[in-house]
């Protein structure tokens, strides 16, 4: 049942990266915002990982993200690494791997530990160096104790590229590749929260991917037809968007999808499908079938792509995603929002 409360107020699900969030953006955030761009430019309406604006014979690519992860230090990373990686990766998913600059705006809660701030900043610095993405400008604000939870980081990234890769370019016959094990980041953060009483060695995969994506684009060029990083909502959300925008049916082969043992265990114990869980160091790449092997080889040659695998193929049909479980088949439905652990 839906109460008046639910209709008037923003709820947690509106930030969860699923259907509810998309509707909020479409209905409210984008309202009245014409593109203001030239024909051919990629703006709000495309709802891609970033915006792309023609400048001369090149493209200027821009993206922005706010980061509110909790806890701010988690196995494998922290909010600083997440901020830089997330923005670098959004640019990379558009095909822009040479980052011109990043911004860093921080809002701090009064009482936030200076040591923690230093840790976060060092992490941002290291990750920016790793990605070759300089932080060039920023902003700092402080709010009163209790007015926000700790820290909010916002990063905007700008890059320039000759060729844009959207998330809408799939055609029947194209193959889908994931660049490694799925669900690592989301499960790592979940288990770090302690109230699930789950202990393990789950580690977030948070990392900047521009180097790896560069090597893929060098080897396959325009045979890479769609890219998306499966953050909130996981691989499921990402392939749903790709299927919807290209109006194809994507068939995923579940046994081929790489999942670490620990993530599988967390998945079984919590009753959460790894396909719905956030990743911060992975990409879903759509390629023309003849280029799949070469792309896979390029990925395997890169430290971040060792477990890359071909996981699906596009076929004719309406926009939908089918999962072959190995023992059966079902439709994969877009996740509703924040996964709750299944309680028995």
């Amino acid at each position, binding site marked *: 049942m839906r109460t008046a409360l639910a209709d008037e107020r923003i709820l947690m699900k509106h930030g969860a990266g699923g259907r509810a969030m998309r509707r909020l953006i479409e209905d409210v955030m984008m309202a009245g915002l014409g593109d203001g761009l030239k024909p051919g430019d990629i703006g709000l309406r495309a709802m891609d990982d970033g915006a792309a604006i023609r400048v001369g014979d090149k493209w200027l690519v821009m993206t922005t993200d706010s980061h509110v992860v909790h806890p701010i230090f988690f196995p494998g990373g922290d909010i600083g690494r997440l901020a830089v990686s997330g923005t670098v990766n959004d640019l990379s998913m558009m095909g822009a791997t040479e980052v011109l600059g990043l911004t860093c705006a921080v809002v701090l809660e009064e009482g936030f530990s200076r040591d923690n701030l230093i840790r976060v900043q060092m992490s941002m610095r290291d990750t920016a160096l790793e990605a070759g993405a300089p932080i060039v400008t920023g902003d700092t604000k402080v709010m009163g104790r209790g007015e926000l939870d700790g820290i909010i980081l916002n990063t905007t990234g700008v890059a320039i590229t000759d060729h844009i890769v959207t998330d809408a370019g799939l055609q029947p016959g194209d193959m889908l590749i994931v660049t490694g094990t799925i669900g690592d980041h989301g499960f790592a953060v979940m*288990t770090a929260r302690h109230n699930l*009483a*789950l*202990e*393990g*060695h*789950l580690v977030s995969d948070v990392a900047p991917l521009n180097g790896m994506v560069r090597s893929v684009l060098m080897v396959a060029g325009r045979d890479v037809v769609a890219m998306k990083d499966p953050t909130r909502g996981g691989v499921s959300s990402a392939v749903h968007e790709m299927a919807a925008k290209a109006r194809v049916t994507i068939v995923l082969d579940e046994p081929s999808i790489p999942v670490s*043992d*620990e993530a*599988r*265990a*967390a998945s*079984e*114990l919590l*009753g959460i499908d790894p396909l719905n869980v956030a990743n911060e160091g992975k990409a879903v790449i759509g390629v023309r079938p003849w280029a799949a092997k070469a792309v896979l080889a390029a990925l395997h040659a890169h430290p971040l792509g060792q477990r890359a695998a071909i996981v699906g193929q596009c076929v004719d049909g309406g926009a939908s995603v089918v999962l072959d479980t190995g023992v059966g088949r079902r439709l994969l439905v877009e996740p509703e929002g924040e996964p709750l652990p*299944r309680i*028995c």
Partner: protein
Amino acid sequence: MCLGVPGRIVAINGLVATADFWGMRREVRLELVDQPVEVGDYILNHVGYAIRRIPEIEIQATLDLYEELLREAGASNDLMAADVKAEIDATNGR
């Protein structure tokens, strides 16, 4: 109802045990299990309680049971044919 992945006991402290599920560890309580449980045993977990000890020998017994079932159904000899048939059926939109 829980999915009940079998867990392997790695530590016991009175009525509380730690079970390992594929590298993830979780506490399980031992008030309900009706056989003595030792480190190394497998248990069936339900909402944080071990409800059964799973003798490893029974796992293979179950798989053998399925093989026998298939043999009796006349399918086992025909595994190859069954595979091919399934593929054809799938292609034809069964």
